């Protein structure tokens, strides 16, 4: 009867590998997140590779590597081509995260798993949604509604609600119920008994202290090091948790008027903050309120300098400072380089704010006791010189020639084809206009091509005397002269738009910082030089939990509150998953599943339900009683059929009398208050309520647990007396009789 639902983890089950799950809802295949670890190992994606082409839609929940890192690679190499859904910040910050990741990689290796263009094209088709926006899927997904909801954790972080036929499947990983400096807590707890809840067991074994105390400890630890002349490195993600840290630091520095410099160093730091500044409506209520009232934008960050390359940092020398640098894993990126420099000095502190990904340098340093020394690879990209340069140039020349040859052939064919079809479309001006715009982006990768006379126009290689294509304009004549098409003289709206767009350069997804652009567009041939070295870890290492995830206790209470019919646990170490599984199975009647990677589980709801239409005639005879948010009534009806649909009609014969039902939710404490207000002497005695001298009211049975089925059992007892009937009358008044 219900909607068929299957879940298959492709990664991130019984372990802390990146998140990636396959969810099939009545045959429509969702890919929930598409994560990759900072190691970028394609072998991790094998399970995904098997199913990628069959995916119908991708839902992203957070803008970090663990949730969307593999998207460009999967789009490029694994045949993933489904539309992607994400919130605006997840889209923007995710894009920047991928840029940063690529640039960090590219600086130290000949990284070829994906390029910036792949990142752009992967993100080009992202459908951007707002929180609580109900998006109806079409075609194959007809009838399915997806809606992102606030998850906390990262800016734009999403709890996905997928609804079909009134049944909800909720995908909520890495949520945070606590309100933070820049984010609201998740709204997960407001969902009503979903059919399936997919959540993580990541933090099931961790418990956190109070946020304020935590913030204070954090700042104290930094100040201690700074005061003693050391520097602090905070390895952070590109655009996720770092925002929270920046706010905490900026605010504290502002309050105390501290002078130690704070640097935020990623390849995209300035654009990150620029975009974040315009995402105020995605942050918590107090930030948007502050802006509405006073137009204060907390991300103006008065005490933080945003830098995008290391040279600026080096200018400052050894003075005490705080550096927030990407990546959090210390695998690559600025944090890696800075760590190597800072590790040797005992005054310095490397403070981890999140648990390192499995198998990364950060994880190695987080073990207790920390290693005395670690082996690292230090790599650098240097420009080519001498023979190498020469060889490179020759190689490029050859490639270029081949390419132009190919291009010209293609162009030629296109020309022929288009000429044959429609003379108008092959107007030389049009060719020039359309392709020059394209190539201005792409051109920089190839450098100037001498063979190309005019951008986009390539003479056929076979032609002896190349010339521009010429098309004779055959004019039509009638009695009044040449036939005029008025459209040719219309002022076109589009032209104006082009002129307005002029100067906006690559229109796609805004900006890469100048520095990064320089890096990118720098066509100077270069190579990567690396050497392995051992770094003595003398600096102090510390770990503080600023991951912004709900801790174990809260996760349990959230699950108990949401009370899904079926619970699927993913992404957590084996112990954590087992622990949470046992806990949930023990304390409530819900079905808990914890699938292994590539294990498909069927969580189709066995809830029975069918739909019936209510006929007008029936409804006009029903008198409902209003009870809080609900109205209830007793219904006696007969089933009929109308247009192939079931319809309830008024019963043809008088229905048999039904057992009367008392509806209401009585709390003894409330009832006590109520009786006291009526002037009764009431007290609690041994779990029962003593009313007056002799009468007791008790609640019995343990079916009153949250979400549990069954009805309340109340007992009123006492000797025959007037009070008894009065109390009973008052007790009845707390209920509705149907």
């Amino acid at each position: 009867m219900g909607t068929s639902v299957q879940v298959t983890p492709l990664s991130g089950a019984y372990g802390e590998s990146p998140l990636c799950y396959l969810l099939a809802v009545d045959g429509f295949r969702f890919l929930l997140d598409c994560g990759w670890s900072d190691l970028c190992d394609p072998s991790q994606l094998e399970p995904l590779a098997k199913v990628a082409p069959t995916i119908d839609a991708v839902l992203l929940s957070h803008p970090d590597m663990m949730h969307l890192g593999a998207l460009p690679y999967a789009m490029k190499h694994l045949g993933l081509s489904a539309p992607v859904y994400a919130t605006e910040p997840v889209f923007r910050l995710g894009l920047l995260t991928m840029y940063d990741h690529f640039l960090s990689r590219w600086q130290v290796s000949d990284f070829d798993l994906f390029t910036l263009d792949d990142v752009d094209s992967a993100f080009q088709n992202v459908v951007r949604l707002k929180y609580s926006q109900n998006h109806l899927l079409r075609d194959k997904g007809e009838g399915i509604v997806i809606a992102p909801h606030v998850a906390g954790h990262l800016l734009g972080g999403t709890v996905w609600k997928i609804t079909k036929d009134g049944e909800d499947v909720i995908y909520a990983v890495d949520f945070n119920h606590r309100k933070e400096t820049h984010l609201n807590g998740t709204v997960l707890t407001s969902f009503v008994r979903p059919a399936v809840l997919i959540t993580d067991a990541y933090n099931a074994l961790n418990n956190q202290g109070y946020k304020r105390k935590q913030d204070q400890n954090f700042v104290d630890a930094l100040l201690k090091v700074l005061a003693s002349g050391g520097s602090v490195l905070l390895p952070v993600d590109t655009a996720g948790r770092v925002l929270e840290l920046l706010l905490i630091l900026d605010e504290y520095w502002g309050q105390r008027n501290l002078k130690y410099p704070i640097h935020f160093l990623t390849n995209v730091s300035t654009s990150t903050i620029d975009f974040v500044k315009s995402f105020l409506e995605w942050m918590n209520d107090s930030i948007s309120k502050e802006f509405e009232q006073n137009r204060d934008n907390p991300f103006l960050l008065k005490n933080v300098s945003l830098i995008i390359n290391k040279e600026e940092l080096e200018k400052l020398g050894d003075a005490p400072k705080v550096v927030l640098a990407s990546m959090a894993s210390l695998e690559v990126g600025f944090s890696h380089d800075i760590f190597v420099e800072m590790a040797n000095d005992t005054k310095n502190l490397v403070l981890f704010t999140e648990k390192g990904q499995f198998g990364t340098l950060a994880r190695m340093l987080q073990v207790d006791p920390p290693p005395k020394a670690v082996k690292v690879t230090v790599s650098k990209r240097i420009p080519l010189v001498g023979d190498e340069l020469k060889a490179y140039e020759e190689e490029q020349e050859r490639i270029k020639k081949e390419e132009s040859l190919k291009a010209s052939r293609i162009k030629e064919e296109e020309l022929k084809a288009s000429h044959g079809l429609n003379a108008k479309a092959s107007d030389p001006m049009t060719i020039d206009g359309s392709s020059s715009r394209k190539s201005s982006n792409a051109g920089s990768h190839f450098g100037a091509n001498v063979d190309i006379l005019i951008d986009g126009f390539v003479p056929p290689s076979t032609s002896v005397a190349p010339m521009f294509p010429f098309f004779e304009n055959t004019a039509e004549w009638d009695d009044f002269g040449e036939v005029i098409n008025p459209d040719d003289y219309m002022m076109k709206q589009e032209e104006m738009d082009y002129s307005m767009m002029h100067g906006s350069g690559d229109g796609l997804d805004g900006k890469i910082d100048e520095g990064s652009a320089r890096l990118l567009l720098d066509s100077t041939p270069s190579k990567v030089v690396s050497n392995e070295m051992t770094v003595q870890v003398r600096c102090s290492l510390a770990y503080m939990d600023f991951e912004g995830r709900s801790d174990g206790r809260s996760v349990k209470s959230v699950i108990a509150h949401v009370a899904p019919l079926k619970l699927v646990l993913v992404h957590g170490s084996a112990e954590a998953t087992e622990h949470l599984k046992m806990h949930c199975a023990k304390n409530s009647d819900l079905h808990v599943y914890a699938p292994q990677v590539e294990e498909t589980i069927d969580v189709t709801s066995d809830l029975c339900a069918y739909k019936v239409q209510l006929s007008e005639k029936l409804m006009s005879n029903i008198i409902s009683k209003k009870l809080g948010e609900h109205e209830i009534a007793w219904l006696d009806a007969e089933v009929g059929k109308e247009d192939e649909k079931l319809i309830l009609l008024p019963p043809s014969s008088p229905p048999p009398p039904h057992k009367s039902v008392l509806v209401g939710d009585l709390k003894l404490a409330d009832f006590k208050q109520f009786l006291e207000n009526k002037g009764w002497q009431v007290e609690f005695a041994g779990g029962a309520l003593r009313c007056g001298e002799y009468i007791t009211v008790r609640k019995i049975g343990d079916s009153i647990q949250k979400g549990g089925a069954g009805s309340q059992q109340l007992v009123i007892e006492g000797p025959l007396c007037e009070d008894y009937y009065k109390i009973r009358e008052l007790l009845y008044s707390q209920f509705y009789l149907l």
Partner: protein
Amino acid sequence: MASVAAALRSVGKRAAPGGDREDGDRMVITPLGAGNEVGRSCVHMSYRGRAVLFDCGVHPGYSGVAALPYFDEIDPAAVDVLLVTHFHLDHAAALPYFLEKTAFKGRVFMTHATKAIYQLLLLDYVRVSKASVDDMLFDEQDIHRSMDRIETVDFHQAVEVNGIRFWCYAAGHVLGAAMFAVDIAGARVLYTGDYSREEDRHLPAAETPPFSPDVCVIESTYGIQQHQPRDVRERRFTEIVSSTVSQGGRVLIPAYALGRAQELLLILDEYWSNHPELHKIPIHYASALAKRCMAVYQTHMSSMNENIRNKFGCSSNPFNFKHVESLNSIDSFHDVGPSVVMASPGGLQSGLSRQLFDRWCEDGKNACVIPGYVVAGTLAKTIINEPREVTLANGLTAPLNMQVHYISFSAHADFPQTSAFLGEIRPPNIVLVHGEANEMARLKQRLVSQFDGTNTNVVSPKNCQSVEMFFRSEKVAKAVGSLAEKVPNVGDSVSGLLLTTKGFTYQVMDPDELRVYTRAQLSSANITQRISVPYSGSFEVVRYRLNQMYESVEESAVQESDVPALVVHQRVTVSRDSETSVTLQWSSDPISDMVSDSVVAVILNISRKGPKGVRAEEAARTKEETERMAHKVVHALMVSLFGDVKAGQEGELVISVDGDVAHLDGKSGDVECENAALKERIETAFRRIQGAVRPIPLSAS
């Protein structure tokens, strides 16, 4: 004021047959302002006991209470949600009054950008009108307090309040402008507010909702007019400005501080950048308010169009103008030589734009460009007709020599846009608001002919004139839980609780599962009652007396062995607990309560009097007796109901009414009759009489 009902019959849904229309299915839409006028937009909509108010503006042509919408037509306390489309005064400025000075206690929503600008705009409004108006509607404190009550909603974000679901689409017009779609129990209303389907320099075009609303409340500001293409307008504008200044004249552009002004500044700034010869001529922008709002414009990039967002992505913020200087007051303005001044208010009512106008209007070299829609009753409206003389602010009359140009940059839809918009969403009911009576009437006529033959109703109610529509929405219930274990066949009966949530969804369920499906908000209860009645006699006596009194008295099966117990009518258990009392136990419901009361009475009577019961043989005899009695009573009652009733054979009754003859079987209640209506009536009457005459059946299945 008596509200004239322009009753519409809904076309999209099955219309109810006349007569039995339920009040609940009636939707009433009443413009409290902006009905056949422009200004004080405020439209009230009620349906199924829920009420929504769209917009809450003042009329810029009036002041004080006269500028308010007709709030006394409605009960503010009954309004659940107030939705404000954008920050313009004629759409939002009555909000502090409505929040602070009326009984309204619902929730208010607007978009983030609207809320941020709303505060600034209203503070400015209060400051400006303090100078000229005596009866202020509200003060700064009211505005600050209103900020705490306003909630924000993002485009497309769906919100549900008390069964009202709503969300909004981008409307163009100004930054943050939205059109609201409201869904109450399946009936959808779209309120466009002010909208424009033309993309301009910074705003996106209005979205077209992907569904067809049942009612569309749409603005008709421009009636059947058609805008010039944007580039023509822009060229005219820049030409007038540049020719005036090159001839040594001054250009006054009266504009509302926010909205169009930003668009015009973008145009001027670009034009100046492209024409170096103009660089020495200053562009002044006389609005401290707009300066303050710049932060909002610079932040809410996401509400603007792709074009501006890309510019933002690539270079400095486009709202950092290079050639525009801001001007704080007329005192700091050095009025020497040609200049371009953009000043508020747009209607030239008062303030800086009026001061400059008064100063410049006599010089023929000067020009005044009116860039947007002007409201009737303002000076700007007057000078569009180029009168010979105008009245200055100080009451004197002066000749009007200044050139007056009217170039509409106003981002309102024109006729082609309106008609295309309605053609795409195809609402069966169209309500026109926000337009002057004549324009509206023309638009109505055009729309009626456009949608001729498609069963589309177009109405243009006046203020306080209600439009009524009837929707017969399909009610679909979901049967859940144990009740739904198998899908029933035709003819099966279904009994259970019908639960209606505030979102108008229906569920049918077993009473015991109520708790599960309402998330423990509601639950059913069982009350067990235990009462001890003092009695020290023999339990045998009790047993005897009960046996005499009740049809069914059984020995209890489940009670502990040594305690004698009886079950009366399978409901009330009577047991001997101690020497001095008997205990009655039952679970509450009206019948059991009644039985238990009588049992108590019986037991109490034992101790008082001797036995006075009916003998068993008598009971057997009485059975026949009762039958006869019952038949007599039935006969008598039938006579009183139908008049001509004769007793037939074997307890049959022959009833004749107006020539129709019916035969009623007095035992089974079967009726034979040609006339179905009569048959039904007799059946009903018989059923009721039986219910009254015969004892209540005690077994509830």
